[in-house]
C-alpha cells in the first residue's frame, strides 16, 4: 500500500520535472511586427548577447553592464537602426566563473541571429569565452576586460593579436597599472608600497604592470602577497606585511575583498591608503569597508563630466533600472552600439544570415564614432583607441575624481 503511494508520487514528480524541462527558456520572441508600429520588423529578430556576472558578488557591475546594453538595444529599436529587424537582448549569467562563461558563450554561439555579444566583465572569464566566439566567428566586445594578454598575447615584448573577433571599449592594465604608479609615487609621494593580489588574471597583470612602473619611479615594493578568492579574514596577510612598514597598499583584485581588507588594515593598526584598479571602483567598496583616502584608477573619463555621457546618463535614469550603471555601464552602452552599428552596415538592404558574422567583425574593426565614453575606435589589436584613465579618491564617503588624463609612455 505504501509502496504504491510512493511509486505514484514518483511518477507524478518525474512527470512534473519533464514538463518544466521541456518548457522553453529562450527569451526571444518570434518574428512579427509586435508592439513597435513605426519600424518595419518584418524580416525578424536579431539578438545582441550579454555575458556578465548577473548574480553573485559582482552583480552590481554585471547588472550595470546588462542594463546599459539593454538601453542601447531599446534606443536602436526606437530609431529603427536596423531596417526590417527587431533587436533583442539576450543576457547570460557567468557568475564570475570561467566554466559558466564558456557555457554561456557556447549557448549564444549556437543561437541563430546573434549579431554580437557584449562580454565579459572578468578577464579570467574572457579567457574561456574568447576561443568559443572566435571559432563561431561572432563579434565579441568587452566593456571591462583590462588584462593585456587578452588582445596582445602572453608575451608583452612580442604582442600578437590572439583573436580577431575580440575587441574592447575600455583601456588596458598595461596602461592602468603604470598610470596608478605615477600617481601614487609621484603625486602622492609614497615610497614603500606593499602589494596584495587575489591571484586571478586581472589582479596579477595589474600588479605586474604597476610594479614595473613604480620601481622605475623610485619607490620600493616591500612585499607582495596573495590571498584566496573567497577569503574574508585577512588578519594573516596583514600581519605578514606589517613588519615591512609600508606607507601604501596596492591591491590587484575586486571590491568584495578589497573593502573588508581596507577596514581590517585600519583595525590592525596599519592606517595606510589602499589603491586599486577599476575592480575596486564601485560604491559597494565603500560600503564594505573602504576608507577615506583610498584610491582607485578606472578606465575612461568620469561619466558625469563628459558631455557625450550626459545623454547616456539621462536616458539610463529615465528608464528607471533598479541598479546604477556603475563602472562599466557607459562602456557597455558603447560596445552594444558598435555591435548594432556594424550589423546595420552589413545587413543594409539584405537579409541577415549567420554567414555575415565575419563581415560584422570587419565592420567593427573599422568603426569610428562618438560614444558615451568619448571617441570610440579600435586599433590593430582590438584595443580601444581611447586611452583615457582617471584616478579617484574616496572623499566624504564617495568616489571623487582627482586626476584624468592619458597615460604618456
Amino acid at each position, binding site marked *: 500500500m505504501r509502496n504504491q503511494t510512493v511509486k505514484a508520487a514518483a511518477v507524478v514528480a518525474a512527470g512534473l520535472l519533464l514538463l518544466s524541462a521541456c518548457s522553453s527558456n529562450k527569451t526571444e520572441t518570434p518574428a512579427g511586427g509586435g508592439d513597435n508600429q513605426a519600424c518595419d520588423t518584418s524580416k525578424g529578430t536579431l539578438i545582441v548577447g550579454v555575458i556578465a556576472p548577473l*548574480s*553573485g*558578488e*559582482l*552583480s*552590481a557591475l554585471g547588472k550595470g553592464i546588462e542594463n546599459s546594453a539593454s538601453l542601447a538595444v531599446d534606443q536602436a529599436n526606437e530609431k529603427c537602426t536596423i531596417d526590417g529587424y527587431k533587436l533583442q537582448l539576450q543576457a547570460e549569467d557567468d557568475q564570475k566563473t570561467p566554466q559558466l562563461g564558456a557555457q554561456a558563450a557556447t549557448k549564444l554561439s549556437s543561437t541563430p541571429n546573434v549579431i554580437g555579444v557584449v562580454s565579459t566583465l572578468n578577464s579570467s572569464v574572457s579567457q574561456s569565452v574568447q576561443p568559443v566566439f572566435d571559432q563561431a566567428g561572432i563579434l565579441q566586445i568587452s566593456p571591462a576586460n583590462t588584462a593585456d594578454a587578452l588582445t596582445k598575447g602572453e608575451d608583452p615584448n612580442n604582442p600578437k593579436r590572439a583573436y580577431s573577433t575580440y575587441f574592447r571599449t575600455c583601456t588596458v592594465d598595461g596602461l592602468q597599472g603604470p598610470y596608478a604608479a605615477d600617481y601614487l609615487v609621484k603625486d602622492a609621494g609614497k615610497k614603500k608600497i606593499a602589494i596584495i593580489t587575489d*591571484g586571478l588574471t586581472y589582479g596579477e597583470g595589474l600588479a605586474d604592470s604597476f610594479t614595473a612602473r613604480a620601481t622605475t619611479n623610485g619607490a620600493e615594493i616591500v612585499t607582495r*602577497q*596573495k*590571498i*584566496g578568492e*573567497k577569503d*574574508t*579574514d585577512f*588578519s*594573516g*596577510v596583514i*600581519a*605578514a606585511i*606589517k*613588519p615591512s612598514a609600508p606607507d601604501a597598499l596596492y591591491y590587484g583584485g575586486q571590491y*568584495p575583498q578589497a*573593502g*573588508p581588507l581596507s*577596514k*581590517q588594515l585600519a*583595525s*590592525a*593598526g596599519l592606517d595606510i591608503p589602499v589603491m586599486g584598479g577599476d575592480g575596486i571602483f564601485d560604491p*559597494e567598496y565603500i*560600503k*564594505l*569597508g573602504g576608507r577615506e583616502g583610498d584610491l582607485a584608477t578606472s578606465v575612461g573619463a568620469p561619466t558625469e563630466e563628459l558631455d557625450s555621457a550626459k545623454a547616456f546618463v539621462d536616458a539610463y535614469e529615465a528608464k528607471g533600472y533598479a541598479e546604477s550603471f556603475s563602472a562599466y555601464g557607459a562602456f557597455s552602452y558603447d560596445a552594444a552600439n558598435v555591435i548594432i552599428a556594424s550589423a546595420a552596415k552589413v545587413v543594409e538592404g539584405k537579409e541577415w544570415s549567420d554567414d555575415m558574422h565575419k563581415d560584422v567583425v570587419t565592420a567593427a574593426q573599422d568603426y569610428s564614432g562618438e560614444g558615451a565614453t568619448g571617441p570610440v575606435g579600435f586599433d590593430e589589436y582590438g584595443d580601444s583607441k581611447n586611452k583615457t584613465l582617471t584616478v579617484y579618491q574616496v572623499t566624504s564617503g564617495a568616489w571623487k575624481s582627482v586626476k584624468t588624463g592619458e597615460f604618456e609612455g
Partner: protein
Amino acid sequence: MTTLLQQIANGLVLGATIGLIALGYTMVYGIIQLINFAHGEVFMVGTFGGLAVWRWVLPEDVRDDWYISLPAMLLGSIVVAVVIAVLMERFAYRPLRNAPRLAPLITALGVSVALQEAVRLWFPDADAAQPYPRVFIESQIKIGPVELEATEVLLIVVSIILAILLQAYVNKSKLGRAMRATSQDPDTARLMGVNPDRVIVVTFILGAALAGVAGVLYGANINNVDTAIGFQNGIFAFTAAVLGGIGSLRGAVIGAFIIGLIKTLGGQYLPGGTQYDYVWIFVILILVLVFRPQGLFGEAERVRA
C-alpha cells in the same frame, strides 16, 4: 618576534570561531554518528538572523548602544539557528534514524545546499557580500607587542567561556548525563529511561545556539558576511572536530585552536605564503587520520556488541 606573537593571536581568534562551530559537529556525531554537514549553514543562517534583527527589529536610536544591540542580535541569531536546527533534525534526520549511514550523510549535504540557496534567494541582497555592523566597542587592545581588536578579544573570551560551560553542563546536569549515556550506548540508555528523541533534539539545540553566537561575533569581527561563509568555516570546523577526536568536546575546541594556529603560522612561515594556508590545514588532517584516526582526544572506535 612581534609577527610571531601577532600571528599566534590571529590564529587564536580564528580558532575561537571554528571552535564554537566544531562543538556542534562533535556533539551531534557523538550522539547519532552523523556528520552534520549542514551545521556550517546553521552558523551562516545565525549570522544573517542577527543581521535581520539589526536591520528590521532594532530601532534606529538604539543601534549604536552595543550593550543593547549586541544581546538583541545574539538572541535573534540563536533563535533563528535553533529553529533551523530543530526543523532540520525533525524533518531531514529523524526519519532516517534507522537508515544506512550513507542516507543521512547525503541528506545533510542536501540540507546544506538548500539552506545556502534559500538564504541567498530570500534574504534581500544576500547575493553579494553584506556589510555587518560592529556591535561592540570600537577600539584596539594592546597586549604587549600584539594588537587585537576588541571584538577579537571578545570572540576568544566568549568562545572559551561557552566551551567550559558546555563541558560543565554535559558533565554535571541530568540532561548532560543522558547525552553521555546515549552517546556511549543508545540501547542501554533507552533501557535506563532516557528518551533518545529528546536528547537528540537538545544536542542539536545546544550546537545551534553555539553556532548562532559564533555567527554574530564572526560578523561583528569581519564586518562582512555572505552566504558562502557557512561552507568555508564549516569545513574548518569539521576538520577541527576530526583532528581533536570526533565525539570529544575538549578535542573539538583544542583541535579548533590548532587549526587556527596552523592557518596563520603556516601562511606566515611556510613556503607559498598566505595563498597556501588552507593546504597546510588539510595536510595535517590527512596525517592525523593516517596515523591516529581517532584524533587527539578521541577513543578508538569500539565495535558495539
